């Protein structure tokens, strides 16, 4: 398991805790990574909305870079993942495109959940757990792009994926069945259609609250920003207390692997995880 790690804009900004916790967890799980230094933004949904050419050239430069390194590309942000995967598939399927950019071998593009669930595997993770999170109820939230339009790991269901639940079980915690787990959090609309974005996120937090989990777990920087950082605003909109800590899947894993919470960036969460941490004895 050796990957070229593409962080992307969010992972070096508001999702710095995702980056930190991933790097801490990767070495414990035997995931070898080489971090890309000269990377460019993937264009998110914006480049695709404005300039088709740009939405292809941005991921292309990263793909060419990975080809040189002869490694699979690993992305944590699902938006970066979808954009790169789309262009890599085009290069594989379209001969003219393949030759135009003189590829020899198009690198594989993978997302974190895929690597954790299928390359490492829940069984392997379970063997390395030092501090099982017994009695903790964890609510998994996938969002959109981890499961659509490409099936997670090429095989998961679009509507009822289960890999996060398996990872949660491996940590010793109890996954909660969340019927809204693949609904959209509205994150991509936050800066263009704020009111709509907040409504979408509010409905997710409201439904999550009803199941009274100890924490929510996500694998996307944008979902995290909406559910964690925007939680106060949403409480205002709903006129209801939510007070649910939102962790990255790597932070939850890290705690169960016995890694210090500061190395996992947990002190950076906006919605206080204090009660949750007390419950697991950190």
């Amino acid at each position, binding site marked *: 398991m050796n990957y070229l790690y593409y962080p992307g804009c969010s992972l070096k900004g508001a999702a710095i805790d995702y980056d930190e916790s991933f790097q801490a967890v990767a070495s414990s799980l035997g995931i070898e990574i080489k971090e890309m230094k000269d990377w460019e933004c993937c264009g998110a949904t914006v480049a695709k*909305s*404005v300039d088709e050419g740009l939405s292809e050239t941005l991921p292309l430069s990263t793909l060419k870079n990975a080809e040189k390194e002869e490694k699979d590309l690993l992305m944590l942000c699902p938006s970066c993942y979808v954009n790169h995967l789309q262009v890599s598939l085009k290069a594989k399927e379209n001969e003219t495109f393949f030759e135009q950019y003189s590829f020899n071998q198009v690198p594989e593009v993978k997302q974190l959940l895929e690597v954790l669930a299928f390359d490492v595997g829940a069984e392997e993770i379970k063997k390395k757990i030092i501090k099982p999170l017994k009695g903790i109820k964890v609510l998994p939230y996938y969002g959109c792009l981890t499961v659509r339009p490409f099936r997670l790991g090429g095989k998961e269901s679009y509507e009822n994926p289960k890999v996060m639940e398996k990872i949660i079980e491996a940590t010793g915690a109890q996954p909660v069945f969340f019927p809204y787990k693949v609904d959209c959090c509205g994150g991509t609309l936050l800066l263009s259609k704020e009111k709509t974005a907040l409504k979408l996120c509010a409905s997710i937090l409201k439904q999550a609250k009803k199941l009274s989990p100890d924490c929510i777990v996500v694998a996307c920087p944008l979902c995290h920003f909406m559910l964690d950082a925007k939680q106060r605003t949403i409480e205002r909109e709903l006129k209801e207390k939510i007070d649910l800590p939102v962790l990255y899947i790597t932070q939850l894993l890290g705690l169960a692997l016995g890694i210090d919470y500061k190395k996992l960036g947990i002190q950076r969460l906006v919605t206080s995880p204090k009660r949750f941490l007390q419950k697991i004895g950190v």
Partner: protein
Amino acid sequence: MKESVIKLIHTDTIPESSICVQCGKCSSGCPVAFESEHSPRKVIRFLQWGCLKEASQSPFLWLCASCQACTVRCPRGVNISSIMLSLRRIAQQQGWVMPEENLSYYKTFINMIKKRGKISELRLGLATALHKIPSHPIEDIVLFFKLLKRGKLR
């Protein structure tokens, strides 16, 4: 229709709209359809009628969150999300964007990529707030300082 526009349509997924059977599955599962007078089904219907301009001016276009739910659920395999993106591009190229749409976020984002190759969320957020007052300014200011303190803005 202008020749340049016809060329545009043929290079992407828009022709797929012709196989749509108007079952409405896309719209019943769409998380943002409730916000707009048009649903994704209606936008596709405009295309079937050859009304490219009406489709490109639909208020639904800029509400689409690209969540891909419609695309994976369509029983005919129409790539609806991709059609919405194509229509956004056509609307801008042809100058069909409705005056009430504020696309400053898109412009700032693209300029930032072209200039620096990366996005600074701090700059992007601030620039967007200048063009459009946030709906919860006080909470946003509090959040700004919280994020700053936590080293999440750089």
